[in-house]
């Protein structure tokens, strides 16, 4: 009991220094949390994927399309439940900075294949009935203030022209991890126009989305589908949705690695700051520690005092930092810069890592000072003037 009382008295003896150290810790813990969340955001697509969905794309690379008639042959594969398709539209809404993903989809069944997109039945019906209709994610609709019935003009970059879409429905995500910063339109509508203007580019699709009955057969079915189109002009590559999404992460892996590294660097920096605080604290109190030893306290007790003080500092900073991380992440997510991330939510594993890092900082910072104070020579210590 006295042990804890002593530690608390010690912690708040140099108020300014303690306040500064804890502020530093809070900054570090928040920064670490936000950076980890940025890394998580990168994996949002992969985490939201389902095991019973496959994606087929052109084997050369994603920018090459496949003929739309492939769909009928895919349907015939044993174990395939349904086949839908999507095409990256890549248009510009007013300014290039307003980037958001747009997909031209098979309006008849695409949204049904993704139960994580929650649509209102009447809105879904309205979307299906309007060839120029668009289904918009909640986050996107909120960002640009779109309401049902609004017309959204989009300038095509891949499919040239000025396109007009009417918002017919706004969908919600099943939970925080669902990406609702997306825009869906009818592929039929785009295709018809393109076919008229550039006959060679018509009836081509970027990706097929395939739902299978049994997740454990994903590998076999993928192989079988790719076998159907071997040695054709457009050979295919079929993989699970997760593998497909991780493919995007792998392409920008260098950035992910850099952010991860930097998030640990910030912990190192704060380790230096806390270690410094503890080193100074212990040096100033050498005479006191000697006194404690004269009174009969063991070296272990003295070491534990220094150690406990470092831990109180580290954990207080961590607790306040974690509490602050949530509103900060929220604030960032709703800022213009944060809008670039489809999903930006602090995960439990991030909080866990924050705690672990704080404990490590406390332990490392206390190591040298507590060892030194435990070994204080009584006579030298008493003679020492802080």
């Amino acid at each position, binding site marked *: 009991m006295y042990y804890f009382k002593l530690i608390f008295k010690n912690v708040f003896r140099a108020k300014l220094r303690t306040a500064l150290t804890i502020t530093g810790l809070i900054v570090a813990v928040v920064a670490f949390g936000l950076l980890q969340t940025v890394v998580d955001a990168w994996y949002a697509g992969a985490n939201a994927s389902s095991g019973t969905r496959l994606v087929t794309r052109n084997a050369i690379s*994603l920018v090459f399309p496949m003929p739309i008639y492939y769909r009928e042959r895919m349907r015939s594969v044993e174990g395939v439940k349904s086949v839908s398709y999507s095409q990256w539209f890549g248009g510009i809404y007013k300014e290039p900075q307003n980037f958001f993903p747009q997909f031209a989809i098979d309006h008849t069944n695409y949204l049904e294949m993704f139960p994580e997109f929650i649509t209102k039945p009447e809105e879904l019906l309205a979307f299906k009935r309007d060839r120029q209709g668009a289904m918009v994610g909640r986050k996107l609709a909120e960002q640009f203030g779109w309401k049902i019935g609004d017309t959204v003009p989009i300038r095509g970059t891949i499919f040239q022209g000025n396109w007009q879409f009417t918002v017919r429905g706004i969908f919600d995500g099943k939970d925080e991890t669902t990406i609702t910063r997306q825009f869906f339109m009818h592929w039929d509508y785009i295709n018809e126009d393109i076919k008229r203007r550039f006959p060679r580019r018509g009836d081509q699709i970027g990706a097929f989305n395939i739902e299978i009955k049994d997740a454990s057969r994903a590998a076999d079915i993928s192989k079988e589908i790719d076998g159907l189109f071997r040695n054709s002009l457009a050979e295919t590559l079929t993989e699970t949705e997760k593998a497909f999404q991780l493919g995007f992460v792998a392409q920008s892996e260098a950035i992910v690695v850099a952010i991860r590294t930097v998030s640990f660097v910030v912990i190192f920096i704060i380790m230096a*700051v806390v270690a410094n605080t503890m*080193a100074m604290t212990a040096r100033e109190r050498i005479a006191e520690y000697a006194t404690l030893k004269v009174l009969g306290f063991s070296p272990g007790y003295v070491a534990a005092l220094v150690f406990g003080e470092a831990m109180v500092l580290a954990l207080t900073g961590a607790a306040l930092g974690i509490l602050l991380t949530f509103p900060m992440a929220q604030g960032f997510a709703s800022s213009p810069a944060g809008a670039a991330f489809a999903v930006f939510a602090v995960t439990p594993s991030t909080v866990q890592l924050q705690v672990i890092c704080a404990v490590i900082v406390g332990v490392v910072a206390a190591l040298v000072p507590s060892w030194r104070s435990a070994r204080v020579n009584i006579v030298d210590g008493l003679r020492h003037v802080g």
Partner: protein
Amino acid sequence: MKIPFSYIFRNLWTRKLTTALTAAGMALVVFVFAAVLMLDAGLKQTMGGTGSFDNVVAIRAGSETEIQSGVSRDQAALVESMPQVARNKLGEVMASKESLVLISLFKTGQDKGSNIITRGVSPMGITLRPQVKIKTGRMFREGSSEIVVGRNVHADFDGTQIGQSIRFAQREWTIVGIFDAGGSAFDSEIWGDVTQLMQAFRRNGFSSVIVKLTNSDNFDSLVKDIKADVRLTLDAKREQIFYEDQSRALSTFISILGSVLSVIFSIGAIIGAAITMYSSVAMRTGEIGTLRALGFRRPSILVAFLSESLLLGLVGGLMGLFFATFLQAITISTLNFQSFSQLAFSFALTPKIVVQTILFSLLMGFIGGFLPALRAARMKIVDSLRAA
């Protein structure tokens, strides 16, 4: 009267552990600060060095990148025949009609493919890029399924040795050479014969047309002529500007991330410096009183402590910068969001970055040391002497 510099220096030297820890914290911050600036500078150097100022790239209006663009044969022929386009000694038009595709290759140690730009060039296309030189092997032969790979592709990707072949579009493409494009974005590309690539991909139109201007000043008149011709729905840009624009999103991302990180990190380092300086002031109360009693004025005390903190910042800054110089050996390859393909670039240390970094570390030292120095300067002689 000024307090001698050696006194300031020795104060830091006496408390080596504290000085080292504080400086190390600052060094890490400076390192990150410098690394981000260097990365952005490296990206700009790569993209800026890719194009030549006198070359003009024409792509389909509104398509932003070569990959999304399409230029028909008629349009390409019209652009080539413009009077502003240079001709060589033999009277040939200095223009390259190119076709771009993305192919997916595996980076060494990865099981997921990354997109690589594969560029079909006309023979003139190589002349138009004097920075591209064959490093080993030879250039591809016209009319054959041969390709040459950029040195960064060769370094980062599996199966890109000379003699190996890559299969796409129902053909085997043999690698016959590795080229060095002087650190430009072409180093991250694969080149082949444009007619062969177009045949293999069953393409009818080109992706872009690159022409050399007779005279650098003719750019505006060329753009005007292109705009005036209703048959040409094309955008024309100087090649250099075109490539700079291609990396704008990545560059913005790096600088935003970097400045946010630098601000957050520097708060940590400033706090570290402040703690050190406050304790330094507190421990030397008696000393400060003595100095004042000897006749040193308040401003001298303020300057002395501030100099100590600045010196601390400088040490941290130099340490950070020292480690940052090693980054120059590293080349990173990542996805350029705009061209949707891999782009390799290195960290570049420019004199401007050195100055910025040192100023940044001095600023951290100044902010961290100002309040403690002020406290030291404000002490009353009697009180501080009694405290000792």
